């Protein structure tokens, strides 16, 4: 069972190749080059895209454009190769990499994407009230380190791997493999133009 997993929701995107539960390789990449990373992983392991059995895609939250790059690639691949696709939230995957941590993704506009009571949410970093000693990971945790540490949270050093979204964890969490159309992006924000219209 050859699984390709990818997540392009954050600027430091990730792609992983697994055979069964065994990680064959993982690469950090730019979102737009995620398939180049996938190609390199397959080539290193002696496979071609036709050998893939299933795909896992990070659904965000994160950069809207990034999320779409990954999902359009995953859906296109699933469609062309008739493969099942599973979606995994980028927050869940980040947390899976650091058990017990609180994932914090930079949402730009002075906001963060995180889990509040276990659910994906968008909020302002100063409104986050982590339990003392909570380990916060992700590019949002790095960006708002001062705020989070002042609130009693712990943040690993900026260069720590723990802040990176790594696609091997998406593969580990993926369970619902099915039709590509059923895997939806997790934007958490409606477009500004719609917000303006609602006013």
């Amino acid at each position, binding site marked *: 069972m050859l699984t390709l997993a990818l997540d392009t929701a954050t600027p430091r995107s990730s792609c992983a190749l697994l055979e069964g539960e065994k990680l064959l390789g993982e690469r950090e990449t*730019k979102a*737009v*080059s995620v*398939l*180049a990373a*996938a*190609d*390199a992983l397959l080539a290193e392991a002696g496979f*071609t*895209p*036709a050998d893939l059995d299933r795909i896992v895609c990070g659904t965000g939250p994160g950069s*809207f*454009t990034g999320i*779409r*790059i*990954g*999902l*359009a*690639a*995953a*859906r*296109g*691949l699933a*469609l*062309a*190769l008739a493969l099942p696709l599973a979606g995994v939230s980028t927050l869940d995957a980040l947390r899976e990499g650091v058990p017990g941590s609180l994932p914090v993704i930079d949402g730009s506009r002075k906001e963060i994407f995180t889990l509040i009571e276990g659910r994906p949410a968008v909020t302002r970093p100063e409104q986050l009230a982590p339990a003392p000693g909570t380990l916060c990971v992700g590019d949002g945790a790095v960006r708002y380190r001062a705020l989070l540490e002042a609130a009693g949270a712990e943040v690993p050093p900026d260069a720590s791997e723990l802040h990176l979204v790594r696609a091997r964890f998406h593969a580990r969490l993926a369970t619902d493999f099915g039709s*590509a*159309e059923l895997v939806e*992006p997790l*934007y958490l924000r409606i*477009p*500004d*133009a*719609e917000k303006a*219209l609602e006013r």
Partner: protein
Amino acid sequence: MILAIETSCDETAAALIDDAGRLHANVVSSQAELHARFGGVVPEVASRRHLELICPVVQSALDEAKLTFDQLDRVAVTQGPGLIGALLVGISAAKAIAWGKGLPLVPVDHLLGHVAALYLEPVRLEPPFLCLLTSGGHTLLLDVQEHTSLRLLGTTLDDAAGEAFDKGARLLGLGYPGGAALDMLAREGDPGAYSFPVARLDGLDFSFSGLKTALLYAVRGLDSAELERRRADLAASYQHAIVRALVEQTLQAAEKIGARQIAVAGGVAANSELRRALAGAALAPVELCTDNAAMIASAARYLKPLNPPGYLGLDAYASRQLA
């Protein structure tokens, strides 16, 4: 067989063309209604919709042509110019399909695509010709000497002609996108009722912003009952001014380069007055003038394909690169 994908603005489109240039499918899913309530295309809204539609549109093109992915030889996709976020959805899906099937990818310039609509049935035009490419995003006079290159002779200094149509339509209360509605209304009006200024520029460029301002003042000078009565005349006069500017500069360009053939491409080529005014010109059918993937497929026939993995890092571009 080439599968082509186009997502540069607010149409999600896929088409299939064979080696002889015959279309086997041309599917266009327009988002116009989605954007109407905003009074213009909202990039984030368009990009979200493209992601929802891209795979269903590709699948319905294959279904329509009774083809499978295994029968494809190449995949083509619009690389730019256009909305970056929108383009990236199409590019990403196209790369994935091509890579998955081990096929070459052909990145296509959107403007080259508009011109290539003229190479399709029923027009079957061949270079050289002078092309007026006029749409919501562009107003260009192009010297087309070969299939794969364009030489710029003139362009708009401000609004595109299609933009001028849409803005005029909005001033006349025709909603968005209102170019087609303005065209309809103009048929009932007198094109000589108002004399709107046509910018006279030295070279082969265009300018439509003054015209839009003139319409604004004309509309402001009327109370609502009068406006209702004069709406068709305003539409007819306004359209006449735009078409006159397009026609005059096109004819001047043709004379300057000694063009024997004139062609019109792009969404504004659907305008009935322009089609009449340039009756001797080559005109693509209306459905191939507005954004579609058939024109991208047509252009791709003449372009060099990229082999995997060479195209896997391909990025979109927002602004005009050719000509």
